[in-house]
């Protein structure tokens, strides 16, 4: 199952349903957790019932042997609750943690399938809180809302089934009390949670902004004599936030007081029923004892419902944010694999027809471009920064949908080909490519899992990294820090280039491969890439497009595409 994108208009409720579906909770495990929770609460409930029975039955002074079963049960139930509680905690958390793992995996898959620039636009902190806090919030949804909700339903029925054979009147009173506790409290708690969530989103944002401003610029404000005014404004914003937060106080209090309140109905109803029953001789002393004392112990499951309702409100908000992450307006629909992926052919032609490209329709970077690159063609793209060189390359690689016109690969519109098919034929080297926090070898094998060490060495040699590798004590097993922070800019760039070279393929697109290299090395590399006969780096039949600003290093017979700056 995948976390499929929703349309922006879809209501929040369906976001929550989708997010919960993406947890992929195994039914059997959930059932086991619910059963363990019912056994926990059932132990306490049964303990209250049996001990009430035991005490009132004992008062009739029966032979002691008559009480043996009740005594043994009381002792067993005294122990079982603790054990079941532990079991229930373990099972519930296991289900929730499994759910969070599945959710994160599905989120990752959904993010991987997005073809727009969501990832680049998202701030790292936002991504962290989506994959972290929000995913966790849905794990809590299982622990605090789903399991207790199901348990409350089961336990409600257990309570009613216990009272039903004893007294219909008491059963009606219990039913009324249970309904009141299960409706009033959660509704109030839900309202309180939504009010505070809203206050945090609106008024607290103002408080935080003002706080940051004062703390950041305290000294300037003080010297200019504006600190008091700023503090006064903080005070006003805080007051507005306080008022918004305090609106949640009453519903939260109602939620907390609901169960004690419903006890009035349950206790008095059951008590009065017991009176009539005893006089009519319709019940034994033990049964009267149950009617007298059990109502006080019948609402444990219901007391978890306010927290469940509040969690529901929080989970809904979290699911909504996750829905936006994987599905906003810019999400491209998953393209149907139109053509079966052919075996990687050795050559392919690349054409652009009336191509207009850009990250957003408001600001096209490249307009109405026509290109025709037969197999083995070489092209250098130059132009000032901001002229759309990288955008053009991303569009030619099929990573970005054209705003108008089309890109043809091997004579077919790239949009009609399966993404896997395009990727297998077009290799793109991007200057912002990622270096993974793993070994040097794995950073090249990310391209192809079956790469041998000899092939890895060969690629590193081709980009001039063999001397560097020789100085590393652990060689190919050297661990690289996250995003290449432990290697220099030039090494990183050449590593990314080695990746592109290893990958090969009929079409090679390279974005500024020689930046950060010393000019001598860089120019040699550029010539090796662009001169079809000059090197072993790239086969002569490969189509190569290089974005560069080293105009002087481009071989004389290489065609040059010059992009213009525009605003």
């Amino acid at each position, binding site marked *: 199952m995948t976390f499929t994108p929703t349309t922006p208009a879809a209501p929040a409720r369906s976001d929550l349903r989708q997010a919960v579906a993406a947890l992929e909770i195994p039914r059997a495990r959930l059932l086991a957790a619910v059963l363990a929770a019912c056994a926990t609460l059932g132990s*306490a409930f049964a*303990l209250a019932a049996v*001990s009430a029975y*035991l005490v*009132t039955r*004992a*008062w009739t*002074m*029966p032979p002691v042997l008559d009480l043996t079963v009740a*005594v043994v049960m*009381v*002792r067993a139930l005294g122990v079982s*609750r*603790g054990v079941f*509680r532990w079991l229930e*905690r373990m099972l519930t958390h*296991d289900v929730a*943690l499994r759910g969070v793992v599945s959710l994160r*995996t599905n989120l990752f898959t959904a993010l*991987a*399938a997005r073809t727009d620039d969501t990832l680049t636009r998202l701030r790292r902190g936002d991504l*962290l809180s989506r*994959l972290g806090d929000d995913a966790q919030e849905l794990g*809590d949804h299982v622990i*605090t809302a789903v399991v207790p909700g199901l348990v409350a339903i089961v336990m409600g029925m257990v309570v009613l089934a216990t009272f039903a054979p004893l007294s219909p009147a008491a059963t009606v009173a219990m039913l009324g009390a249970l309904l009141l506790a299960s409706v009033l409290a959660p509704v109030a708690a839900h309202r309180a949670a939504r009010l505070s969530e809203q206050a945090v989103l609106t008024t607290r944002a103002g*408080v935080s902004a003002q706080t*940051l401003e004062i*703390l950041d610029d305290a*000294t*300037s*404000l003080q*010297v200019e*004599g504006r600190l008091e005014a700023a503090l006064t404004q903080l005070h006003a914003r805080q007051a507005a936030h306080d008022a918004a*937060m*305090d609106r949640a*106080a*009453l519903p*939260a209090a*109602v939620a907390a007081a609901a169960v*004690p309140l419903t*006890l009035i109905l349950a206790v008095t109803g059951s008590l*009065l029923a*017991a*009176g*009539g029953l*005893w*006089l009519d001789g319709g019940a034994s002393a033990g049964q009267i*004892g149950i009617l*007298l*004392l059990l109502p006080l*112990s019948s*609402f*444990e499951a219901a007391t978890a419902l306010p927290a469940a309702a509040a969690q529901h409100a929080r989970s809904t908000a979290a699911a909504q944010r996750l829905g936006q992450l994987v599905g906003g307006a810019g999400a491209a629909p998953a393209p149907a694999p139109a053509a079966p992926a052919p075996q990687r052919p050795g050559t392919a032609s690349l054409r652009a027809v009336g191509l207009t490209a850009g990250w957003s329709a408001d600001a096209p970077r490249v307009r109405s471009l026509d290109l025709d690159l037969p197999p083995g063609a070489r092209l250098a793209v130059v132009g000032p920064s901001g002229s759309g060189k990288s955008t053009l390359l991303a569009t030619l690689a099929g*990573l970005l949908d054209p705003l108008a016109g089309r890109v043809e690969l091997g004579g077919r519109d790239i949009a009609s080909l399966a993404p896997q098919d*395009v*990727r297998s034929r077009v290799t793109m080297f991007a200057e912002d490519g*990622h270096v*993974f926090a793993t070994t040097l070898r794995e950073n090249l094998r990310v*391209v192809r899992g079956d790469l041998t060490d000899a092939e890895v060495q060969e690629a590193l040699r081709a980009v001039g990294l063999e001397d560097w590798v020789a100085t590393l004590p652990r060689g190919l097993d050297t661990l690289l820090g996250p*995003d290449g922070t432990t290697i220099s800019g030039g090494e990183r760039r050449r590593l990314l280039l080695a990746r592109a070279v290893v990958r090969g393929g009929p079409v090679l697109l390279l974005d500024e491969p020689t930046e950060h290299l010393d000019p001598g090395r860089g120019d040699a590399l550029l010539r090796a890439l662009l001169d079809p006969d000059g090197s072993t780096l790239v086969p002569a039949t490969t189509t190569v497009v290089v974005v560069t600003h080293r105009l002087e290093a481009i071989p004389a017979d290489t065609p040059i595409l010059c992009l213009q700056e525009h605003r």
Partner: protein
Amino acid sequence: MTTATAEPTMARSADPAADPAPRRSRAPLDPRLVREVRAARRHLARSVVLGLVQSACIIVTALVIARLGAQLLTERDVPQDAPALLLVLVLALAVRAGAVLLEEATAHRAATAAISELRGRIVRHAASLGPRAGAGRGADLTALATTGIENLRPYLVGYVPQLLLSLTVTPLCLLTIGLLDPLSAVIAAVTLPLVPLFMVLVGKLTVGRSEKLIADMRSLWTQLLDLVDGLPTLRALGRERGPERTVRELGDRHRASAMGSLTFAFLSSMVLELLATLCVALIAVSIGMRLVYGDMELAPALAVLVLAPEIYQPLRNVGSQYHASTDGLAAVSAAFEVLDEQPPADGTLPAPDLRTSTLALRGVSVRSREGWAPHAAELTVRPGRVLALTGASGAGKTTAVQVLLGLVDPEQGKAEIITADGTATDVRELSRRSLWDQMAWLPQRPVLPPGTIRSVLVSSRAGVGQAELEAAAAATGLDAVIAERGWDADLGRGGHGISLGERQRLALTRAVLSPAPLVILDEPTAHLDGAAEQVVLDLIEELRGQGRTVVVIAHRSRLVDVADDVASVEAGS
């Protein structure tokens, strides 16, 4: 009556942001919070009173139910015939519900008020501590003032009332049981101390495990984010399918490690539940056995049976709020750590007229992270002259100026103001306000009051005319910005609506307009290109022409060239 225990969920125990610092044992109530925050103090007092009310209600409920039950079974008196007792029962239950309602509602309001008060005090106090105290804490301070202090809410709403119930309900119920049936009280009194005992044992068992879990969580995050960061690359290589298996593997590994720690962590909740129910079971069996032999009356037996679970209930609730308490207490101590720091004292003497006075630093050294910055700084700012302050980055140029302004107390040396007749006064003895009112200070990142371009300029000198505004704007190059955006363009808060370069020009224009005799410019050309730099140089000339004193922190040599005097500061170790 029993209440469900809301256990700490794994989200809290496995939170990557959970405090990795070793948990010092703290008192469950911070005395400073009680002493200094009125809302918290009143909340506490009210909670004690409401705890007593709830205890009374619980005890009355138990006694009345026992009495009505015993009368029914022994005398065949139905409860309907004892309306007074029934009324007492209903009242006791209703008052208890009311007490819970009041407690919860006022707890929320008290938390709101306490958070509000503490945030206000932290921000005000941190601002008064001067540039170094604030900067030393940096992100910690802002995190505390924005979100950290909010941890007081679950602490005050969830933990404190339950803590106080365990100090009222538990002993009072135990006392009542003791009066009704001493043997049951003994059973309870023997099992109760086992709660803290087992908690300590379980705590010892889990020690180190939560730290390991947090470390695991961190490494999971690093690896997961590495993959997410690498997604565009993987997609470009056509390898975006596959890493999700790694994501799942990482998650499963973390889950296994988390469940390992939880196995032990949940032992504490097991022990609590076990002791609570075992105690009730033992009491029930003991009472039953004595009833069989006629050694006990029915009414006290029933009352004890109702009260026994109530002894443990508050303890179980306190246990479930453990995280609310640690997070809340951490926020309180962080808050008072800031509040306890002494701000530099303000002086009382009015500052002399800066148009005729000289400012000087005498052997000023300020401690920095790497040593001293500046170290033994000497400089003299003569009235009506332009002084360029130079030095390598990190040498303490800005700090030297802050000492001159009386914002930072140097560890060694002093800043002085020498009047025309030669009287020298330490800056620390001056009323800062009277000093600051005579200067215009442009920090590297100028801060602007909210408003329009016009209102921001006018606020620097009351009653300034349009002609003067235009002249000043032309002098700083602000006129180009005005031509594009107009005089009434709203700058948003703190000038965030305009670029840094534009903000700099606006702040420069304010400095030109302000009548202050001393103008201090901190790297005024840092965000400007060559042409704009010339504007600043011309501006300094103009300020000199007006007879004003200028201190300019200069990185570029062109600024040094226009200065009358040059002073340089150096860092030392």
